[in-house]
């Protein structure tokens, strides 16, 4: 199948447009004003320094969890463990910061981020080891590990970190906060923090890893064909474990940065953090390309942050933005339909296109 027949960016752009059209149609059906709502969405996400700060901050964890999913996916694994790895990273960073609060700021922050990332990496590596040595499906183990860590973190927060009767840990010391007074000052007190630059640096690192290193190449080789890689001399077991380790490191780092830069503490929660699942969607939207992930995360973030103001300024349910997001990814997924339309001309009737799909 030739996916390059429509040049480069055409499919994502058409998909985004189509996604917004679906959202608009739905709003018209239920009597909401699409133009006003989309305007509120843009103003809410990009209409000022504060909104831009929030939008960029929201991108951080999307980028990192998406990169995490992409690394595992390149090695041929479906890592649904992002939410759990993000959570343990968040937890690890907060614990480190609370326990070593006497350390100088720079060491404290680096230590906390490393602690969170490492926690995520080791947690995810469990699935990698089981997959490598026992052939256990990583789909099941990562799902199970998600729930295990959810309950462990809840238990640990409640019985070790929180004071009696409270469901949250104390706040971290202000010197460990990635959202520094300087950044607050220039972004109108938004939660924008230094983590954004860390995330961008990690994007570059991951790009370099895949395109310029042997290990990165081996991961992709294993993803394409495990037995062929084995014959070519790749240590498949080790590669699987490394892929899952890196995948978890990235998601864990996402949680750690959000912990230090956004939440500043950790609370008991009934559900797994949604960002892990959203990161998966961002990675899929970007076709797992590290650079593409930045733009996909920006789009997601604009919709998510802008969506908040949709329901503030009108009675339109803010879930409309999630419908738009899902539609966009749907259209990206069915790019073959666009290729068919382009090949056959836009005037073909829809069922004809469908039939063409079955017959090639």
């Amino acid at each position: 199948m030739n996916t390059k027949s429509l040049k480069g960016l055409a499919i994502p752009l058409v998909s985004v447009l189509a996604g917004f059209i679906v959202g608009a149609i739905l709003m018209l059906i239920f009597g909401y004003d699409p133009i006003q709502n989309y305007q509120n969405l843009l103003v809410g996400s990009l209409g000022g320094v504060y909104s831009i700060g929030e939008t960029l901050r929201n991108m951080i964890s999307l980028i990192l969890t998406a990169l995490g999913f992409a690394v595992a996916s390149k090695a041929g694994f479906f890592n649904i463990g992002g939410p759990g790895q993000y959570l343990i990273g968040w937890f690890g960073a907060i614990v480190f910061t609370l326990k070593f609060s006497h350390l100088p700021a720079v060491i404290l922050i680096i230590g906390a981020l490393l602690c969170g990332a490492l926690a995520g990496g080791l947690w995810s590596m469990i699935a990698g080891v089981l997959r490598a040595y026992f052939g256990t499906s990583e789909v099941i183990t990562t799902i199970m590990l998600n729930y295990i860590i959810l309950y462990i973190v809840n238990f640990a927060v409640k019985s070790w970190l929180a004071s009696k009767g409270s469901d949250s840990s104390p706040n971290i010391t202000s010197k460990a906060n990635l959202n520094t007074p300087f950044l607050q000052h220039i972004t109108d007190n938004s939660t924008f923090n230094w983590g954004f630059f860390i995330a961008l640096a990690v994007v570059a690192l991951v790009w370099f890893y895949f395109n310029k290193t042997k290990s990165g190449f081996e991961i992709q080789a294993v993803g394409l064909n495990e037995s062929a890689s084995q014959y070519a001399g790749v240590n498949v077991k080790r590669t699987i474990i490394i892929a899952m380790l890196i995948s978890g490191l990235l998601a864990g780092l996402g949680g750690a940065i959000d912990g230090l830069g956004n939440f500043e503490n950790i609370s008991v929660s009934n559900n797994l953090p949604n960002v892990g699942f959203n990161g998966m969607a961002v990675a899929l939207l970007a076709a797992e390309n590290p650079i593409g992930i930045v733009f996909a995360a920006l789009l997601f973030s604009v919709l998510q942050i802008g969506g908040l103001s949709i329901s503030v300024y009108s009675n339109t349910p803010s879930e409309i933005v999630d419908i738009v997001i899902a539609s966009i990814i749907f259209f990206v997924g069915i790019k073959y339909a666009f290729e068919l339309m382009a090949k056959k001309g836009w005037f073909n009737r829809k069922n004809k296109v469908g039939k063409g799909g079955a017959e090639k």
Partner: protein
Amino acid sequence: MSLTTILMTVFSTTFVYAAPLIFTALGGTFSERSGVVNVGLEGMMIIGAFGSTVFNLTFASTFGSLTPWISLFVGALFGLVFSVLHAVATVTFRADHIISGTVLNLMAPALAVFLTRVIYEGKGQTPVINQSMGDFTFPILSKIPFIGKILFTNTSLVAFIAIIVGILCWYFFFRTSIGLRMRSVGENPAAADTLGINVVKYKYMGVLISGFFGGIGGAVMAQSITLNFSASTISGQGFMSLAAMIFGKWNPLGATGAALFFGLAQSLPIIGAYIPILSHVNSVWFQIAPYAITIIVLVIFLGKAVAPAADGQNYIKGK
């Protein structure tokens, strides 16, 4: 608490929690046996839970105590219609199955909560249903000494139906020619095609049936456990069902068994409190036990899970 009462609690909670998982995991086997990977089970459950709850709330006064049962069917239809999205994307438009499944999982809560807000004046959750699936005591079976008390008294009728459906699904796949054809499409679509089997039709069937069952799974969840619909009605049960299906090696009986096992594991935290030796053990261990035991069992007893050979691949005729 007497042994009989403890066992009765174990079985009934197991059945209550297993029923939604059984239906949904069975749905998963249909889709994947026909070669379409289905990570969208969670989304199908959400739509089924939503449809059944809205129907239940709207028609409870008309249908009385039959309402929850009709609601299951309505939930199933919602799931089926919703799964058309997955079928069209993967079978007709050759979308990546994981992408399409993820779309279902993103779309379902968004759409369902959006519509809930439209219908129920801006609220993100529905009112609680009045006609729910209560306990059921089997007329004659419950009179059997001991067993009647622990298995057939105050238990979940829908779970027994689920188990029977599981057996029927096994019969369908391994004892009927349509089932054989559906499996052949998931194993080797090109060979099936050569033999004159309509690959596209069987794949559509597989996905739509999985939507039907996923919808029932979600409906059972809403009608017997949460009793209303909100964004958190389905929180991970679809993924658990996916795990049950893999655990059961894509076999309806295996999936049913695995779902029952997950149900049993879910009842641990509830019954742990009543058993003297276990009552002073910290509850966090019971909470993580189901998931940890699943991993251990998989590693020790099952080894490599082997999916249908062409699962997840798009069939392109003549290639």
